[in-house]
């Protein structure tokens, strides 16, 4: 039985190129980092995160309690933009380390002076790693060691940072060298990096575009700036480029952090949709974009005929996202792909340009526009990645019309195989798990679960459905209407009654926006709640999710990556004008409303995931990602 296994090539431990170093350098640098920081200097130079613990992402504590607080945030707050900037390509002007933010931590010096020496010693050692790491690029091996050493959490948000980096790949460490030093380093390395990284970043850009979702990305800046150089490089699939490119591709890029004012400014300049930032935002979620809702629609509608950068079909889809007309991972993905199909049909290569490069640029532009309307879902990200891979793999000798036909049929095939057919297979597997007399519970509205329930009903199985719903979206009502219309017995309740109703339930079927590599299910907010209650009652939880939604990312909590919706809908109850206590909430400084769209359900609460590859346990998601991405799942 051994012979049947294809030997797996062991990939190099991923050496993350962070910031400003030529690819060959990293290991040397990491060694050359200050071997033993002295207690005096580290405060400022080593322990970067101590500064960041006072950055906007954390509620500023009273001074003397600051150290305790940092102890209590094991996972670390979302990392400040300073660190993110390091990972991004050097083409982004590294106003990423914002001088103003640097100056904030006068507090940090005192702060770091505060602790007792033993603790300091430990912090020092963690500091050593800290310096070596950003110095040397983010050496995963080191980080692993470090985590194994299990430095105490008060070793600074450093450790938290490390952990978070492991967990949320792509957030580099920031070190506190002096400004001038860093600038000099940066200039020197940027030149070296630009050449070497030219090709890598192109795929990095596509990686960013597609691999990350739900928050905006620096991709727009990256892609538009680097397109000329990087696209050229991407053509050559030379051997030496390949490992670099693969490495880059394998490691998802950091997402844009919206609390970096500088970056947000730059992003705004390029944007088509002028979004106004919401006031009164929750501190913990500052790294996610939040805009005033409903303000852009009329303006954008009027701009419809003046577009030159965005194809009308894409524009339409973007507007529909903005208005909230299309929701649900599959629907959004299909709408987007069909819009891209339209735009490809109408596309014609400008003279003196290559189809592949130009089309990719165009697609990048469309994607940026769509992101401005509404952050991408993971399914959309994967679909875009697929499309870009297909474009990049077009044989050069094809004529333009042939190439276009190729792409259009590829998109059609993707939609039909990965979405429509996949749903049919999922339904086929799932109905085998429904027995007569079952009481099935579902939450909100998932297209796959709905199809399965309808199919099971057609097959004549006798069962009853409990639909759990939640404000503000109340998506369950639409599902309820459709099921009752087909004659299925339904019970409808809100999420606050889920523990009341759970004892009657025999199976729980949930949908997912995505399933991540550690088995975590990323789905509509409230799903985690339902799954946990079901687990407590020993009710099996089955997730129905197509395989194209799987992602190699890992997420430990619902905070580091999410989407923020319109907070106003929380303060109002539709149809009940007299409930107006929260009117004018925006004027109160002490009140912030939070409307999260997604949450992460840990894999312990999930019994089984039903995909088009069959029924698998949650631990097998990375297997599917590995086996099929490698074999070009998307083709």
């Amino acid at each position, binding site marked *: *039985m051994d012979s049947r296994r294809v030997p797996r090539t062991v990939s190099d431990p991923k050496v993350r190129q962070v910031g400003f170093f030529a690819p060959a350098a990293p290991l040397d640098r990491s060694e050359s980092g200050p071997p033993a920081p002295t207690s005096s200097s580290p405060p400022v130079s080593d322990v970067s995160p101590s500064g960041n613990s006072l950055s906007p992402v954390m509620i500023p504590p009273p001074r003397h309690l600051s150290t305790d607080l940092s102890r209590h945030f094991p996972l670390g707050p979302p990392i400040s933009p300073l660190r993110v900037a390091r990972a991004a390509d050097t083409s982004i002007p590294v106003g990423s380390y914002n001088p103003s933010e640097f100056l904030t931590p006068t507090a940090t010096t005192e702060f770091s002076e505060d602790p007792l020496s033993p603790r300091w010693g430990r912090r020092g050692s963690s500091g050593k790693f800290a310096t070596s790491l950003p110095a040397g690029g983010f050496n995963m091996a080191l980080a692993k060691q470090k985590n194994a050493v299990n430095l105490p959490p008060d070793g600074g948000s450093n450790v938290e940072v490390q952990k978070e980096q492991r967990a949320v790949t792509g957030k580099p460490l920031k070190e506190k060298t002096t400004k001038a030093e860093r600038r000099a380093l940066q200039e020197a390395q940027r030149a070296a990096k630009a050449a070497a990284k030219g090709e890598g970043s192109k795929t990095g850009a596509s990686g960013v575009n597609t691999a990350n979702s739900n928050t905006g990305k620096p991709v727009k800046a990256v892609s538009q700036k680097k397109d000329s150089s990087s696209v050229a490089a991407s053509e050559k699939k030379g051997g030496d480029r390949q490992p670099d490119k693969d490495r880059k591709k394998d490691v998802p890029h950091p997402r844009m952090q919206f609390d970096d004012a500088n970056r947000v400014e730059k992003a705004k300049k390029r944007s088509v949709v002028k979004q106004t930032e919401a006031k009164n935002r929750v501190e913990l979620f500052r790294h996610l974009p939040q805009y005033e809702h409903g303000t852009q629609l009329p303006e954008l509608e009027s701009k419809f005929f003046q577009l030159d950068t965005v194809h009308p079909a894409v524009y339409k889809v973007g507007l529909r996202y903005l208005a909230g007309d299309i929701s649900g991972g599959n629907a959004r993905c299909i709408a987007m792909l069909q819009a891209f199909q339209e735009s490809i049909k109408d596309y014609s290569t400008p003279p003196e340009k290559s189809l592949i490069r130009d089309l990719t640029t165009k697609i990048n532009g469309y994607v940026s526009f769509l992101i401005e309307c509404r952050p991408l879902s993971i399914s959309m990200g994967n679909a875009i990645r697929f499309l870009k891979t297909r474009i990049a793999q077009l044989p050069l000798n094809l004529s333009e019309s042939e190439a276009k036909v190729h792409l259009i049929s590829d998109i059609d095939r993707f939609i039909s195989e990965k979405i429509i057919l996949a749903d049919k297979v999922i339904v086929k597997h799932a109905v085998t798990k429904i027995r007569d007399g079952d009481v099935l519970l579902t939450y909100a509205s998932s297209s796959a679960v709905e199809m399965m329930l309808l199919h099971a009903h057609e097959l004549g199985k006798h069962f009853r459905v409990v639909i759990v719903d939640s404000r503000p979206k109340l998506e369950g009502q639409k599902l309820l209407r459709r099921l009752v219309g087909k004659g299925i017995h339904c019970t409808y309740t809100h999420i606050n009654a889920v523990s009341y109703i759970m004892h009657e339930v025999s199976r729980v079927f949930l949908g997912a926006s995505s399933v991540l590599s550690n088995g975590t299910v990323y789905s509509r907010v409230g799903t985690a709640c339902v799954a946990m209650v079901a687990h407590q009652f020993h009710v099996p939880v089955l997730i129905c999710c197509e395989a194209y939604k799987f992602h190699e990312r890992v997420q430990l909590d619902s905070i580091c990556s999410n989407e923020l919706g319109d907070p106003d809908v929380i303060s109002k109850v539709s149809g009940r004008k007299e409930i107006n206590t929260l009117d004018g909430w925006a004027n109160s400084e002490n009140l912030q409303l939070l409307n999260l769209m997604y949450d992460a359900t840990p894999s312990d609460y999930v019994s089984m995931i039903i995909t088009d590859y069959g029924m698998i346990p949650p631990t097998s998601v990375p297997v599917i990602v590995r086996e099929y991405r490698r074999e070009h799942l998307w083709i």
Partner: protein
Amino acid sequence: MAAENPNPKISLYYQTRAAHHGVVTSDWLAQAQAAAGGRSDDVVSENYLSSGEEDGKGFSVVDEFNNWRKQPELAEAVAAIRALASVIRSSQATTMMELEIELKKAVDSLKSWDTTSISLTAGCDLFIRYVTRTSALEYEDFDSAKSRLIERAEKFGEISYKARRIIAMLGQDFILDGCTILVHGFSRVVLEVLRTAAQNKKQFRVFCTEGRPDRTGLRLSNELAKLDVPVKLLIDSAVAYSMDEVDMVFVGADGVVESGGIINMMGTYQIALVANSMNKPVYVAAESYKFARLYPLDQKDMEPALRPIDFGVPIPSKVEVETSARDYTPPQYLTLLFTDLGVLTPSVVSDELIQLYL
């Protein structure tokens, strides 16, 4: 290859089983006879209805299978694999498709022979996948492709046959001097592990559960006594009572399911629960051909396998008896699986299945 059913009254399956174990209750025979009614009809009708060479093939698969099964040491699935290999060998097909169809028919007839045996079904499925999953099928001419298939089939048979030895070698490493092992059910693999450990001069003692109603504990203690291993028999209810003294639990498996859990003789789940709550490791010894693409969510989510229970006294007809012969142990209660692929954690089972089937 004409063959007859030597004793048309009792199904071959139960006959060979009885011959293996020598412990047959009247209840059991009665059930066997009842089953035999359907069984022999199938066999006979197959002879009459079909004609031509296919018929001979179909008939001989089951026959081959039974011939192999007569050896008590041979696992069911391995016997099936050997039988299927001989189907290929003796096949008169001239194209790949024909051969595959023949194989499929043979597999179906084997599966219908015993619908409740998971290892048989899984073994057959795996055999088909293993044998036909070669790129050689595409471009070689038929004869060389066929010989490739036969080669692979024999190899698979060899591997499966040797699986027990490999597992024994892996498993006996986990048995340390002075340890106490709790064993449930009569698994030949587990017996092999214990035998190997005893041969390596390890000092250990074994607690056997009685294993009603099959009396597996009695048989096992018999075997172990022959090996000079100190054995203690427990009634099934005394497991929690003795769990303190136990260092590890060893069980076999009828089937290993996709979640990593196992389907085994009734009582395994109970013992795994007790062991888990007392922090004792539960080790499962199972060959890799027992990996099946099932995914039970709870105890009732499987094909029922019923066997009658003899209480020794007549039971009033109003009283219902739970006659299920096996239960499902979820993966969180299992520590490690010893297979011929190595020592695995339960989550690897799905990995293996995905690699093989997709």
